[in-house]
C-alpha cells in the first residue's frame, strides 16, 4: 500500500516551489511554513482525491484533515475505514 505521507511530500516538492532547505516534517503546517496558500490547498485536495480514490466532502475541508502530512495520513485512513470493501 502506498505510503500516503511520502506520496504527498513528493507531490508538494514537485509542484510547489520552495526555497532550498525546506524540510517537510510529518507535522509541518503547510500554512505556517508558507508551502501552500488557498489555491494550493485546492490543488492538494484534488491530488488526494485522484491519487487515493476518495471524494472529499465540503465539510471535511479543514486544516485538521489537510494541513500537514500527518493530518492527511489520518484523514485518508479514516476515509478508507468508512468505505465498503470492493
Amino acid at each position, binding site marked *: 500500500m502506498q505510503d500516503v505521507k511520502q506520496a504527498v511530500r513528493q507531490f508538494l516538492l514537485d509542484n510547489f516551489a520552495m*526555497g532550498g532547505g525546506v524540510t517537510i516534517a510529518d507535522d509541518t503546517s503547510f*500554512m*505556517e511554513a*508558507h508551502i501552500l*496558500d*488557498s489555491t494550493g*490547498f485546492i490543488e492538494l485536495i484534488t491530488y488526494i482525491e485522484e491519487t487515493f480514490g476518495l471524494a472529499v466532502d465540503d465539510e471535511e*475541508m*479543514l*486544516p485538521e484533515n489537510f494541513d500537514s502530512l500527518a493530518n492527511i495520513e489520518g484523514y485518508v485512513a479514516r476515509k478508507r475505514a468508512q468505505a465498503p470493501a470492493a
Partner: protein
Amino acid sequence: MLLHHFFQDTTRRQPDRIALACEGARLSWADIAGEADRLARCLHARGVRRGDRVALFLDNGWESVAGIHAVLSLGAVFMPVNPLTKRDKLAYLLADSRASALLTHAALSDAWAHAIAASPSVHTVVVASKEGASAPRPGGAIAWPDATSPPAEPVPDPGTIDQDLAAIIYTSGSTGDPKGVMLTHLNMVSAARSVSTYLGLREDDTIFCALPLAFDYGLYQWLMATRTGATVVLERSFAFPLKALEIMARERVTVFPGVPTMFSMLTATRGLDRFDLGALRMITNTAAALTEDHIRRLRGLFPQATLFSMYGLTECKRVTYLPPSQLDIRPTSVGRGMPNEEVWLVDDAGRRLPDGSTGELVIRGSNVMRGYWEKPKETAERLRPGPIPGEWVLHSGDLFRTDEEGWLYFVARKDDIIKSRGEKVSPKEVENVLYAHEGILEAAVVGVPDEVLGEAVKAFVVPREGHVLTEKEVIRHCLARLESFMAPRHVAIVEALPKTDTGKIKKTGLA
C-alpha cells in the same frame, strides 16, 4: 489629526476591551499599545527616525498591528508587504523605497534573508519567531522585543504633521515594476473617516478579516476599528472557508468584508447552515465586481445582512459604494462616490462628460495619494491638475459609464492589468519572470475568464530551440519568483506567437 490618533484615543477610552482576536489569542487595546510602544522604543534605539521607511513583511497577526503603530509613533512610514512575496521582488521593494528596517517572521526567512543581503539601506531586521528569542537568525537580525527584553528609552515626539507620509503601499503596474503609493496621514484619516461613516461601523461591531493586512482593503479593517473601537478577528487566509465560518459564528462576527472569489467559494460549499451567523449584519465587496448571481446567493445565505458593493484603488483607497437601498434598483452599479469626495468621467482629452456617458473615472478628494514614490513620470500620468490651482486629481485608469442619474457602472480597465482573486496581476511582471527561464524564448501573458477567480492568468510560451517545457515546470518557475496569485493558472506551450507588422507580440486574440 494623525492616523494613529484614532488608536490612541480608543486605547485611552477603552483600554481593556478586546481589540484583536487572532489564532486563539485575544489582545486588548492596552495590550497592543504596550507591544507597539516596546517595539517603537527598540526601533528608535536602533536609529529609526521620522520619515524612514519600515517594511512589514508579516502574516496577519498581532505583530503586524503592533508594527503599524510602532512605526507611526516614530513618525516613520510603514510599508506593508504581502507575505507571499518572493526574494527578488522583496529586494526590489526594499531597494526602491530605501527602507531602513524590516519587521518580519522567522518562517519567511527564505525570502528576506536573501533580500536583505541585496538591500544595503536596511540596517535593522526585527524577527518574530514561534520559538521566541532563542531561535536562530541570520547575522545582524534581532529578536522581536518582548517583556524579557532590556527596557529602552521612551520615544520622543517626532513632530509629525498630517502632510507627512504614514504609509507606502506598493501596487503592480503595466510596466512590470511595482510602484509605491505614497499616502499621507491626511489621506488615510480622510479615507478611514469616509468609509467607516458610509458603512455605519460601530463600537460594538466585530469585523472578520481574512484579507491580507498588506492589501489596503484588509489594512483598513484594522484602521477603521481603531477609529470606531470595534474588534477585529484576524485570520491568515480564507484557505478553509468552513473554518472561517466556524470562527465567524463563535466570535459573533457582525461585519464580513470579502472579494468575489471568497464569496464564490463560500456559496459553493455545502453544510453552511449548521453555523449560526445570525450576528452578521454587514457584508462588503470590492477589488472585483459582484455579479448579480453573487448578490442573489449571498442574500439567500445571509438574509439579515446588508450588502455593500464598492470600488476603489490603492491610489485613493476607495472611490465609491452603492447604498444598499439601490441594490434592487441597479445591482451592477458601484454607486456615485462617497463622503468628502467628488468623482466625474472624462474623455480622452480630459474634458468632463455629462451623465449618460462613458469615460475615465477621475477622483478628487483628500484620500487621493501624494504620488508614486520616486516615480515622477508614472505619477504625472495619474495625478493631473484639479480645478483649484495647486491641487491634483487622480485619473483612475478605469473606464466607467454613468446612467442618467449619475450612477457608476464599471466598463473596463484602460490598461492590461489582470484581476485574479481580486488581486492585481501585471502581465508584464509575469512575462519578465518567464523570460528569466532559460528554456523560454518568447512569452505572452493574458487574463482569461474564470468562474471562481474572476480572471485566470494564462501564459503562452515558445520554448527555445532544443528545450522541452512542461506546464507544471513553467508554473513552478513562476511560483518561485512571484506571489502565488500571479503565477499562471494555465500554460499553453506553442510554436510561435502572433506578431504585429513591427515584430511585437500581438496579444489580441490570444485566449
